[in-house]
């Protein structure tokens, strides 16, 4: 509830929250600015004509430059960047030539219909595809200007800088709550008990879980509720003090109360980390993110400030998606 009041007090966000909510209630058919009102399928087909894709790709470079300029004006630095990122599974193209910057201390939301390549894109940002034999990746992913796919770069060091929280809570089943949180430190040989205690407490506090578990740190991680397990997973990711945190639909398996807690947490964590979050919940994207990326069929369709993208989408496909016409 806290989250909602916060949003409603914000004039632009209020507007857009209503819009999203309206989109979900299915009663609407908002006026289509591009004059294409022939139902959900038609405009999509038009947009996918070969000519359309070409212009889309041409404008991608310009858009990127413009965004960088705008970001510089606002004093934001680029933390990560993808350059012509392509990901295929066998012959299926999952991510198609995506180039975009990710800004420091910002929450960036990745939205788009199922199967559009959001998760594939996210997992490429900390080399999670290394274990998938048939995933072929080309292009560059830069962290502070350095390509993380450089053969000289060790994926382990990358993943210590770029943490990840998954769709389902994944506590290590045989470990206690305490051991789960400090696993990333303890298992690489850090034995200083005092340090581990401090890190554990700090991470659990950051993840808003400490008060609930402080008296039973020795009980198994699996004994917690789903929402608590997900916050435990977040605490575990925070304990190694990464710089960027990737979240893959972190609240999709949680109830509204736990979701609200995790959303508050994301807003809070933004002060210290750069966060990229994949979400199917558009209202969530508007609540927590500063920037939004809309992907469709593996392509980057639109990227911009969240309130701009939701209130004033430039692409018909974005508009159709956020107004609930497909997805």
């Amino acid at each position, binding site marked *: 509830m806290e989250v909602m009041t916060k949003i409603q007090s914000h004039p632009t966000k209020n507007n857009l929250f209503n819009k999203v909510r309206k989109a979900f209630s299915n009663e609407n058919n908002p006026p289509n600015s591009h004059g294409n009102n022939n139902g959900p399928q038609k405009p999509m087909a038009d947009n996918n004509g070969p000519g359309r894709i070409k212009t889309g790709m041409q404008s991608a470079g310009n858009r990127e430059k413009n965004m960088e300029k705008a970001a510089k004006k606002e004093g934001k630095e680029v933390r990560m960047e993808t350059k012509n990122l392509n990901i295929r599974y066998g012959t299926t193209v999952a991510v198609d030539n995506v180039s975009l910057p990710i800004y420091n201390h910002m929450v960036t939301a990745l939205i788009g219909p199922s199967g559009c390549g959001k998760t594939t894109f996210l997992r490429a940002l*900390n080399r*999670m595809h290394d*274990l*998938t*034999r048939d995933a072929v990746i080309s292009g560059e992913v830069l962290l502070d200007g350095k390509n993380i796919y450089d053969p000289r770069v060790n*994926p*382990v*060091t990358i*993943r*210590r800088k770029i*943490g*990840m*929280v*998954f769709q*389902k809570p*994944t506590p*290590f*089943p*045989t*470990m206690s709550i305490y051991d789960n949180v400090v*696993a*990333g430190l303890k*298992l*690489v040989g850090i034995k200083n008990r005092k340090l581990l205690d401090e890190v554990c407490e700090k991470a659990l506090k950051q993840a808003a879980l400490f008060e609930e578990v402080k008296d039973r740190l020795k009980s198994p991680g*699996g004994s917690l509720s789903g929402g608590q397990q997900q916050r435990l*997973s977040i605490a*575990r*990711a925070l*304990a*190694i003090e990464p710089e960027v945190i990737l979240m893959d639909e972190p609240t999709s398996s949680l109830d509204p109360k736990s979701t609200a807690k995790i959303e508050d947490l994301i807003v809070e964590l933004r002060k210290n980390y750069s966060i990229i979050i994949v979400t199917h919940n558009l209202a969530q994207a508007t609540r927590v993110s500063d920037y939004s990326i809309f992907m469709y069929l593996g392509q980057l369709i639109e990227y911009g400030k969240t309130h701009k993208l939701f209130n004033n989408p430039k692409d018909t496909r974005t508009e159709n998606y956020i107004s609930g016409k497909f997805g």
Partner: protein
Amino acid sequence: MIKPVKSLKQRNLRDRVMESLLVFSTILVMAPLLIIIGYVVVQGASAINADFFIHELGSPARAMQGRPTGLVHSILGTAVVDFLALIIAIPVGLGAGVMLSEYPDHKLNPMLRIINDTLNGMPAILKGLLAFALIVKPMGTFSGLAGGVALAFVMIPIIARSTESALMSIPWTIREAGLAIGLPRWRVVLSTVMPAAKTGLVTGFLIAFARAAGEAAPLLFTSFGNNYLPNHWTGMIMGPVDTLPQRLYSLAISPYKEWHAMGWAAGIVLLAFVITLFITARMLTKEKKY
């Protein structure tokens, strides 16, 4: 409603016929095991007594003159050779199983899978021959060690396969979670996946152990057999040593009636041992898994 061609009565009859066919084949499956257990126990029970577990076999004359004989040397020998095999097979089989399950992207993986399956299907006597060439020939003597190596060849493919399936039963997300906090792959396997799969791993060891414990063929020309207990325990590893399955074979083909009964008794001990192992493995599998 569309009416079925056959009446309800006919269909019920068919159902019952099918069910009784299934029951019949179930009985056919269970019968051999029950007959074997029953027959072995009936034939060998008379030879099972305290002497059987205290004394060694000695020469045929000993049994014919009615002096106390037993198979303590075979029981101890089996324990030594089988544990030796397990010590050799666990690290190798475990390593192969981890490779099969955790490194599907490794270029050696497909070859390992083929070789492991071939080794599993290879006749056990050939494994004995291999151990003969590797150990007996250079050492110049039959030995418990050679027997252990031969049985390890029996255990390795079984352990590799059971390890693979035990590890695969752990959700892949656990590994990704481990990698995401910057752990190297080997550490993820060792500290998160393997502890979660512990029960499955141990079950695999037990099943491999039980399978190998019943093998006679690979031992015939490796541990060879011995009618006496060696003077020192090291003799069980470095010299020819007796084992139950191979002793059962020797006793069964011997011309002495007294020895035949002892052969059956050896069968009882072997069966009891193997069945205990299988039941333990079964109970472990039933325990809660993650």
